[in-house]
């Protein structure tokens, strides 16, 4: 799957990190690092992390790798 995080919008609350710890990491106090193309098996984790973001900064793909609705 594919995600991108709008790091202008991200304010480093880091609510998302424990929900998808292999996809999202903090580098220091508030700089978020992430895996832009995590394995599909992590979709539920990533969706939960995205839903937890207080500023809606996590953008999740709406199409899968075949170009169909994810």
């Amino acid at each position, binding site marked *: 799957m*594919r995600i991108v995080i709008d*790091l202008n919008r991200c304010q480093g609350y880091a609510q998302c990190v424990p929900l998808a710890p292999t996809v999202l990491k903090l580098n*220091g*106090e*508030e700089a*978020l*690092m992430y895996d*832009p193309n995590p394995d599909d098996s992590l979709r539920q984790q990533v969706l939960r992390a995205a839903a937890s973001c207080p500023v809606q900064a996590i953008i999740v793909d709406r*199409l899968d790798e075949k170009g169909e609705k994810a």
Partner: protein
Amino acid sequence: MKTAALVADLVTEFKTHGRIVIVGASLAGLRAAEALRDEGFNGSLTIIGDEKHEPYDRPPLSKQVLKGWVRADHTKLPRMRKVDAEWRLGVAATGLDRQTKQVRLANGDQVPFDRLLIATGVRSRPWFNPKEATLEGVFTLRTSDDSGRLQAALAAKPGRVLIVGAGFIGSEMASVCRELGLAVTVAERAEAPLVGALGGVIGDIAAAMQRDHGVDLRTGVSVEALEGDANGHVRRAKLSDGTTLDVDVVVASLGSIRNTEWLDGAGLATGFWGVACDAGCRVFDINGVVTDSIFVAGDIARAPHALYEYQFLALEHWDNAVFGGRVAGHNMVSLEADRRPHLPLPAFWSGQFGVNIKGVGVGPFGDEIVITQGSIKDRRFAAAYGRRGRIVAAVTFNHGKWLEYYGALIERSAPFPPPPPGYDQAGDMKPIPARFPDPRVPTGVPDVVLTGHDPNERGAEYRPKKRDPVGATKHAA
């Protein structure tokens, strides 16, 4: 038929059977394509990109990819909807003929269009000596292929890495090198890192951060020559202060060059700072007359900005590509009354040395700075930039939650120094000179530039087609 009905008919006809070509298959081009389909454009859509890859995200390339956590080909951008486009990837556009409305490709093909979006962005400035640039171990960083190669070189544990240029990307790379435990030297021509974008006061803090993390930071120097061994691998760098460094990897992080060459001779207002357009992404021609069918978005666009005295603003920022692409897409299929302006409050971020640096506004438009919250010693603070008593920009180090507050002040041209919000006020809130370099002094090219009031000012130049006699090329500026 009444005129209004005729126009409505034309719009319907264009949305059904029109041909739109987007040149540039990265963030701005992709988001524009999605916006076009969102707006009900059902005609033919062609997206041309010189890289063979489908659109991918670039910010991770200098961070998690170099670190080895994320593969270089694993930053593909999420798709928000089907765009149903013909993708022409791996072939560059080499020319534009406005008379016949065709884009010429490197393989000789001609792609006709009714409306065109220019989103060809920038490329990294290469090492100035072409022979030295071909030495093994000499890199630039812009594309995912660049990042993959550099990552492999760093993973091979080189003895010392030399990074030339301490802008945001150079500094981020130095940070990754230290996280990987590599010896790294950063050579910067200016007095400190990040001075082009943030000025000398913040530059001093960035310099201290680098040195605290074990970076061998050399400021006020340039790298004059690189030398290779018998196998053609770079081994030594000669600095302008007379010193010589033993190095195994050199990364030239010298800013960017706008990809405007393919527009030479098209008679558009293009040049060093990009492609001039109005606030609605419509491109100006060389005479400052706005075109109807050619639009521009992303790093390569420069448009007058209401917040900065209507000077043209060139912005190499991520969200400028996203929002610019969307506005361009909307305006390409909308009538005059429905067009929207793209007037972004510039915003950026950079993660380095464990610190999240974020900013809003245009720092170099100001001349004073005041630390408003937090403490420099803790590397957790907010600072505001001012010009003639009003706030024009703000920057935070690990204090991003407060940036929105300053952004709102900038948008309404609030007084400078601004009232700090809430708690956590800095001790000494006296404005001091921000120490931006004289714009005439060559230094690292910042990624936000105010480029004057004229569409053709500051380096836009008219390069007529080949039929003109030698020497006829005149600079419009």
